[in-house]
């Protein structure tokens, strides 16, 4: 382990890593500019073929939830002298595993920043983020997180938080009583969504609010009422279609602590989906949590949103068991937004930011909501520990309206162009995390341009 000192920063460079030329100067300048006391960056990894150019590992912006899952910041990190001293000193930190070192430094740092530069070169064997389950357990103890931590092979540590209280959750299901075929069986979608939540979920304190269009067929309404039973409140909706307004109306009819927005074309898979999503709110700066959404055929519908540069669902259409770039689909992590098809948020916070914006009647109200939360200093978390089917577009055709896009851009142009959880060198217009540097191997693998999604 080499310890390098530059401009008030201490860098930790393991034996298997080689710092690239000019990195010290670049990191020092960057840290001074953004006033960072913890800096990490991208890396290059050589293969066994000496003629093949090194492949690239690009890293997202600061994501504390992800760091618990694995050492996504890489093996080389820089921190200020003060942070290093507070974390136990350079010699002590140098003796720890890379994951342990990053966790300890991150705990004491105030401003964590990613520099979008290649900091070091290492062997391909060190490309995937390393893990240290003992370090994560110790980190949870130090930071007051009550959780069980298990290693998932060498790719990630599963941090399953313990739910400390049992707040009331209102499940909001806006619907127009659509009937559709799911897995070969005809059913009223909303009735199926409510029934699956009632029968599969192990969470005891649920109440259901169905916001039903006034032209819903009587038999569909009856099925919904039967599925919800005593726990269901039905609200008639007789205005023009506006998903956001329907959710807002449901929210003002309840005094539950949390709101679970649930599309009618969903069906939960994880029995502990509510407990899992609730547990992230033990951190008081979490504002919104979303699960993994799967299509009817079991492929991924969404693993969170990213702006690349338009909103995309991570790994849409890919098999549910793929690890994603740098095993990103194995760990909970911060994202720019999640789909409102299944998302949990505190009611107080919902009211504090004005609920869903009714200027987005169908699309982008979830993105707008997540960005409002970010402006209020709250994080949005996507978790792989909870899964739910989303039979998207069973209820309506996805249509992207230019007026919605214009409104989104007028409000959030700065955030759309600079997604902190993406990377400026990503291959754009892709559902996946891929580098866009010329000559990069992943460019050859690219499947070509794809159309931006119409989020719902």
């Amino acid at each position, binding site marked *: 382990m080499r310890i390098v000192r530059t401009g008030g920063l201490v860098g930790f460079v393991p034996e298997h890593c080689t710092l690239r030329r000019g990195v010290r100067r670049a990191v020092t300048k960057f840290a001074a500019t953004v006033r960072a006391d913890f800096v990490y960056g991208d890396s290059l990894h050589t293969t066994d073929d000496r003629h*093949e*150019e090194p492949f690239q590992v690009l890293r997202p912006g600061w994501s504390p939830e992800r760091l618990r899952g694995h050492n996504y910041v890489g093996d080389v990190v820089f921190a200020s002298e003060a942070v290093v001293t507070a974390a136990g000193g350079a010699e002590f930190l140098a003796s720890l595993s890379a994951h342990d070192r990053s966790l300890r430094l991150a705990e004491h740092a105030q401003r964590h920043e990613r520099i979008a530069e290649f900091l070091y070169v290492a062997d391909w064997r060190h490309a995937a983020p390393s893990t240290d389950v003992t370090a994560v357990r110790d980190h949870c103890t130090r930071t007051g997180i009550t959780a069980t931590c298990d290693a998932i092979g060498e790719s990630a540590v599963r941090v399953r938080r313990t739910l400390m209280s049992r707040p009331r959750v209102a499940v909001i299901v806006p619907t127009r009583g659509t009937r559709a075929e799911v897995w070969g069986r005809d059913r009223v979608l909303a009735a199926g969504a409510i029934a699956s939540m009632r029968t599969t979920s192990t969470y005891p304190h649920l109440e259901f609010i169905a916001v039903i269009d006034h032209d819903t067929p009587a038999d569909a309404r009856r099925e919904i009422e039967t599925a919800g039973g005593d726990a269901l409140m039905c609200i008639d909706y007789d205005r023009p279609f506006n998903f956001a307004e329907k959710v807002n109306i449901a929210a003002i009819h309840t005094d539950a602590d949390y709101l679970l927005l649930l599309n009618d074309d969903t069906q939960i898979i994880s029995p502990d989906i509510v407990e899992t999503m609730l547990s992230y709110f033990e951190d008081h700066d979490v504002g919104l949590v979303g699960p993994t959404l799967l299509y009817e055929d079991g492929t991924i519908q969404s693993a969170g949103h990213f702006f690349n540069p338009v909103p995309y669902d991570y790994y849409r259409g890919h098999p549910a068991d793929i690890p994603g770039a740098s095993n990103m689909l194995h760990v909970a992590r911060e994202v720019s937004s999640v789909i409102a098809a299944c998302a949990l948020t505190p009611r107080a916070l919902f009211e*504090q930011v004005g609920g869903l*914006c009714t200027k987005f009647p169908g699309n982008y109200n979830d993105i707008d909501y997540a*960005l409002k939360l970010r402006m209020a200093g709250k994080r949005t978390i996507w978790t792989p520990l909870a899964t739910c089917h989303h039979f998207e577009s069973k209820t309506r055709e996805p249509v992207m309206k230019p007026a919605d896009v214009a409104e989104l851009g007028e*409000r*959030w142009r700065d955030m759309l162009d600079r997604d902190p959880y993406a990377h400026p060198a990503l291959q*754009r217009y892709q559902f996946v995390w891929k580098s866009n540097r*010329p000559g990069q191997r992943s460019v050859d693998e690219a499947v070509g341009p794809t159309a931006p999604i119409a989020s719902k």
Partner: protein
Amino acid sequence: MGLRRSEIDARLAELAAVDARLAERAKANAARYRAEHGISDEPYAFPTYRSAEEKKVWVHKWWVRPFRFFYRHLPVGIRSRIKRVAT
């Protein structure tokens, strides 16, 4: 918890007012960003794939074609050395 329509409308108006306040802040931030980066005030539309890539990926410019052709026909050892220097 049955609410009258007027009560619902009043509560919706409250939410809309909060949303409008936050939207004003967001729009001010976005306008500042546009001014800093010299972006026009035209209504936002998602950039298309073609327009974005033509600007970004210089290796696809027409005048690079002969250089690419020459590079591709170099022996692999020389090519890998050039790549190593370039990256």
